[in-house]
């Protein structure tokens, strides 16, 4: 293991703009770091907040939602819905103690391969600076849980030997 932390970023990209932007970046040989796992969705409006929460719960360090610029949605209005969801989600995640830079809404048109690559690299850098999220460690009870359970079973067993 190298000692630089390599963040895992999950990116949801819309089929019509940002996924094509990522494609364009690829065919134009524009480099972005390999930390990002891309998932193609038909529209940024298809990104249910559940997807984002699930990505974090399963170990993502950051999540990007990318779609067409406002006014350019293939389905007319859905990226505005994505925008409102993102703002509500960010407000909620903030209240859960999650750092702001771990979730990002990015507009990228099909022609903006270079801009998308810059945004991805920028996000990776910011998440790297934050360090690992490892969210599920938040609920691994680190106290003396198992020990206490065993002790209790043992005490009860001893008490059973005394006639009631």
């Amino acid at each position, binding site marked *: 293991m190298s000692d630089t932390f390599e963040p895992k970023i999950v990116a949801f990209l819309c089929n019509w703009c940002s996924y094509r932007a990522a494609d364009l970046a690829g065919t134009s040989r524009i480099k972005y770091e390999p930390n990002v796992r891309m998932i193609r969705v038909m529209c940024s409006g298809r990104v249910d907040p559940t997807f984002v929460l699930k990505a974090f719960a399963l170990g993502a360090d950051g999540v990007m939602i990318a779609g067409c610029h406002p006014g350019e949605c293939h389905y007319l209005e859905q990226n505005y819905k994505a925008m*409102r969801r993102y703002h509500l989600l960010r407000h909620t995640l903030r209240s859960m103690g999650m750092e702001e830079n771990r979730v990002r809404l990015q507009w990228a048109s099909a022609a903006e391969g270079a801009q998308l690559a810059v945004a991805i690299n920028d996000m990776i850098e910011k998440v790297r600076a934050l360090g690992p999220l490892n969210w599920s460690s938040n609920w691994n009870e680190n*106290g003396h849980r198992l020990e206490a359970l065993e002790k209790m079973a043992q005490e*009860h067993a001893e008490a059973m030997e005394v006639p009631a």
Partner: protein
Amino acid sequence: MTGKPKLALYWAASCGGCDIAVLAIDDKILEVANLFDIVLWPVAIDAKVRDIERLADGSIDVCLFNGGIRNSEQEYMARLLRAKAKVLVAFGSCAHEGCIPGLANANSRDEIFQYVYKDSPSVDNPQGLVPVPDFEVPEGTLHIPVFYDTLKTLDQTVPVDYYLPGCPPEAENIWTAVQAVAAGLAGAPLPPTGTVLGAQTTVCDECKRTRTEKKIKVFKRVWEILPNETECLLEQGLVCCGIATRGGCGALCPVVNSPCIGCHGPNEGVQDFGARMISALASVIDSDNPAEIDHIIEQGIPDPLGTFYRFSLAHSLLRRTKLGNGNGAAQHAAVPAGRTA
């Protein structure tokens, strides 16, 4: 011993309301006593844990378990009753989703102890004592349960067969569920494991208010307006959770002019209640401007955790707020004005 099937009722991190709800089935409680041999029910009968420990595994037919798992004693009892019961029912929102006790997952154990035993204005504790699991006295060591950082739901602790939603479940639903389980024990087919014994529709489906797909620019808090009794409360600006919540209560709260706060948990097929609410509210906010959207949200929903996860934080995908890293302090600061002591 009679030949009747055995029933156990137990409470863990709960308010006691679920036990009262069982009594609210009125004279049918006598029928329950006719149908079952009640072997454990701390609120009503004198039975000892030792008696339960002596029973063979699987010898209790049904256990109705209310409350979440806050400490090691509750986890011990959950495991014990799981082993002894053929059918384990998570009874009520606390066992199902963590409910109000699960909102303490917004804090760590240390923060909870700090407030409850030291900072709360009603506490007089000059020595600053907090409970410790092992305490030495001349006679030996005293043990009390270990308090967990994170409240767990029943199904995050042991496998659960059925869920009965609601805070607390309604009397009719309790009675229907008890009859279904009794019939199942007599040979009728039981619903598949994991079934939530309740409605498959949302509270909105049961609500008689008129909806016009109106969008809103301002969210109101319940004390800010007196809503009219005919239009959808959400369209009047109140955050009504009916849209994400499993029905079965007959839209009890909107009927009395109060928004649904989500006590029946997420509707069938919804994994995370808060995510569903976020999706729903995103469709009613009347703005395409990021700054204005932020303003509407921050003014109208100062406490997103308590609004979107009032009953389901412990059972949500993220289960709790971030522990450690100094975020606990920031979290305290984020408590909306008027909510702190």
